[in-house]
């Protein structure tokens, strides 16, 4: 194996592979930073270009886009409160607060280092434990997904700020929005009012763009008067200190591992992972009250959590031949076009390629770290742009991004609606991220509950006769208990 890996490293650094790797990572970062443009889209756009390429450089380029894209989403989230994908929504919670406190460079460097840690850990775990992770992933079916979603929903309590009830109310809004469209089990139209666009439901990315980017643009516009008095916004270019690094390392490592496990389960991706890791970091923290107010641990957890998925997501792809998420679905297409059948045979017949991919992922993560750190000075220039000019640019990019994700005018309407809604809710001090959690996990909870009941012929026994389900149910109960205790503590203070 070591020999294969060394050979792989030589390939990754070779003259015909490294340039496309670099191109992929940098391209992915740029793409990911734009609202509405996702890693999935980047990989899909590049797919036809790989038709004529050799298999190793082709896959390496696409994986570079994947890794870069997930990291890139966080740059805009941290600097401008505009997460490009749901995966970087958890980074907003603390990252943007740090930027507002003038610590943009520190936040960006923490993001780069944590993403790097998450990605590296994930890749190493992928190399070492892919078959074990795969057999774990195979034990997941409808009941397990339902239990995971249920546990995920308890995260709402940890991202609700001071008022858990308000957070729950927001979460319910998200859950309700997620039921719009054709029923995923039996195609009954729900709340569609005979509008074709509503049949497919409300897509999450336009909602995300509206809730975060557009509402933030409106808030900034509101503050613009007061801003005129002190137009020069001061911020330091200081990156993370050694103390910061020491503080975030345990969190980043734990989140990287958690992210890998979550990523290896088909259907659970970077969005769920970043929130779960954030939740876990907050739970384990001695100072949970700092989360949401610029906690570097919170930012680190979210960042290591979403990049931690990158290696895990390749587990089902490489070992079982099924994609773990949207990006790996496109990667699967790329493998097939190259004439390779992903799955266990890939290790037997094309070890060069498999280890080439592994090594390139290690290199890609290093490239991402370097580009991320070197880029900080440049990224920070973005917040030096006068706000009066930046606001319309964010608005335009948001609306075009909402359109681009599915070439849909309707999605522009969705983004605008949620932009105004988000702005209004901010006025009432209602947190927005729970809406997102509700939208991500609602369909997962519902369809899998119903599928479970079908699998068990209407019996509810799946709740206690499956170990993984029991594990998540215990976690859920524990999480609810912690939330109630914290809530009490808050109301006493």
């Amino acid at each position, binding site marked *: 194996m070591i020999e294969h890996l060394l050979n792989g490293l030589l390939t990754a650094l070779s003259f015909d592979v490294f340039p496309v790797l670099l191109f992929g990572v940098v391209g992915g970062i740029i793409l990911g930073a734009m609202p509405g443009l996702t890693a999935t889209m980047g990989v899909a756009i590049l797919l*036809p270009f790989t038709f004529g390429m050799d298999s190793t450089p082709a896959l390496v380029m696409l994986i570079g886009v994947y890794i870069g894209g997930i990291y890139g989403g966080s740059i805009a989230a941290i600097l401008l409160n505009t997460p490009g994908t749901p995966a970087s929504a958890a980074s907003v919670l603390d990252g943007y607060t740090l930027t507002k406190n003038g610590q943009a460079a520190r936040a960006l460097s923490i993001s780069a280092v944590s993403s790097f840690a998450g990605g590296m850990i994930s890749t190493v775990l992928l190399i070492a434990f892919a078959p074990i992770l795969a057999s774990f992933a195979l034990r997941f079916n409808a009941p397990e997904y339902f239990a995971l979603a249920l546990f995920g929903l308890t995260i709402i309590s940890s991202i609700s700020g001071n008022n858990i009830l308000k957070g729950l109310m927001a979460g319910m809004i998200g859950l309700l929005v997620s039921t719009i469209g054709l029923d995923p089990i039996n195609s009954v139209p729900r709340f569609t009012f005979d509008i*074709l666009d509503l049949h497919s439901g409300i897509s999450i990315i336009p909602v995300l763009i509206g809730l975060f980017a557009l509402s933030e643009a409106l808030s900034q516009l509101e503050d613009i008067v007061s801003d005129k008095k002190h137009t020069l916004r001061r911020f330091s270019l200081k990156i993370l200190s050694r103390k910061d690094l020491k503080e975030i390392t345990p969190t980043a490592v734990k989140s990287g591992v958690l992210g890998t496990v979550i990523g290896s389960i088909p259907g659970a991706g970077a969005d769920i992972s970043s929130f779960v890791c954030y939740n876990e970091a907050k739970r384990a923290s001695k100072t949970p009250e700092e989360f949401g107010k610029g906690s570097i641990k919170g930012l680190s957890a979210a960042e290591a959590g979403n990049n931690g998925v990158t290696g895990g997501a390749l587990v089902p792809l490489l070992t*079982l*031949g099924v994609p773990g998420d949207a990006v790996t679905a496109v990667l699967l297409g790329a493998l097939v076009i190259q004439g390779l059948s992903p799955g266990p045979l890939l290790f037997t017949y094309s070890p060069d390629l498999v280890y080439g991919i592994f090594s390139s992922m290690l290199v890609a993560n290093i490239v991402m770290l370097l580009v991320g750190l070197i880029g900080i000075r440049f990224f920070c220039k973005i917040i030096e742009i006068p706000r009066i000019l930046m606001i319309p640019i964010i608005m335009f990019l948001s609306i075009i991004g909402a359109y681009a994700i*599915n*070439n*849909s005018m309707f999605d522009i309407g969705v983004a605008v609606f949620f932009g105004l809604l988000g702005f209004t809710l901010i006025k009432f001090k209602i947190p927005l991220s729970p809406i997102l959690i509700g939208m991500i996990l609602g369909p997962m909870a519902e369809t899998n509950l119903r*599928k479970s009941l079908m*699998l068990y012929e209407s019996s509810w026994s799946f709740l206690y006769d499956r170990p993984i389900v029991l594990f998540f149910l215990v976690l859920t109960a524990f999480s609810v208990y912690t939330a109630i205790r914290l809530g009490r503590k808050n109301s006493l203070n």
Partner: protein
Amino acid sequence: MKSILKSTLIAAAFTFVAGVSAADYPAKTIRLVVPFSPGGGTDSVGRAIADAAKDELGRNMIVMNRTGGSGAVGMSFGAQQKPDGYTLTVVTREIASLPQMGLMQHDAEDFKLIRMVNLDPAVVLVSKDSPFNNINDLIAEAKKRDGGLKFASTAKPNFYLMALEKDQGIKLNAIPYNGASEAIPSVLGGHTQVTMVTPGEALSQIRAGQLKALGIMSEERIAFLPDTPTLKEQGVDVSTGTWRGIGAPKDTPDAIISTLGKAFDRIMSSEDFKNFMQKGAMTIHNLDEKEFTEFVATDTKNLGVLIK
């Protein structure tokens, strides 16, 4: 006299206008609407055709993913575009089924069907540890445990399964998974006992021996799975599968349709494209406007029987 002259002039003007636009065609980038998300079979076929069309037509063809409603959103969108040949749509079997279930407002009549691209049979798959070794084992067990066998369905409703159920008078418990990428792990993990997908979706698991193919639902054996018998060989006369093709809005001028048709013919007979389809275990099945339209009409009728 005057009126004749007038109508001739108008007719001439029309031919002229139509002639100009068709002769110049294509004068700008063409959009190809793909009604499914990136990564699936429909998307990769769409992208391969779009990529090859660039050279055949001398203009860019851009894939535009418009997903939702099992393809209904994208195909309805495609049907409503200007009939100028600059927006084409990848048409899939859903255009024959969804309208009949009231899940789509447009149907095949709203398109001028240009070419059918591929036709792939479904294959019946069980996990390698399964006690079933041929389709009759499965049918016998299904008869014994009425509705007790769990079927990992890739779509709702599943017409592959319904065809078999109707023919054999059996009933399986169909659990609706979200496509082959969820259905296959479900069978691999032993949560469900059987699934039906197209060969391209499960080729690697079949080759690796993780999944056992009980039979292929076509008239003849296919090249990708030469050792897998058809259901017909096993005494079960059911054949079903899925197909894809390319369509344009129904009022698109015939001249444009024929330009595109010829271009698609050249693409489908090119080595590159054959190679591409071969690797994805998809079977090219080129039908021209007339054949394709008839094919869809027949399939619509067949599906109608299952739906009712």
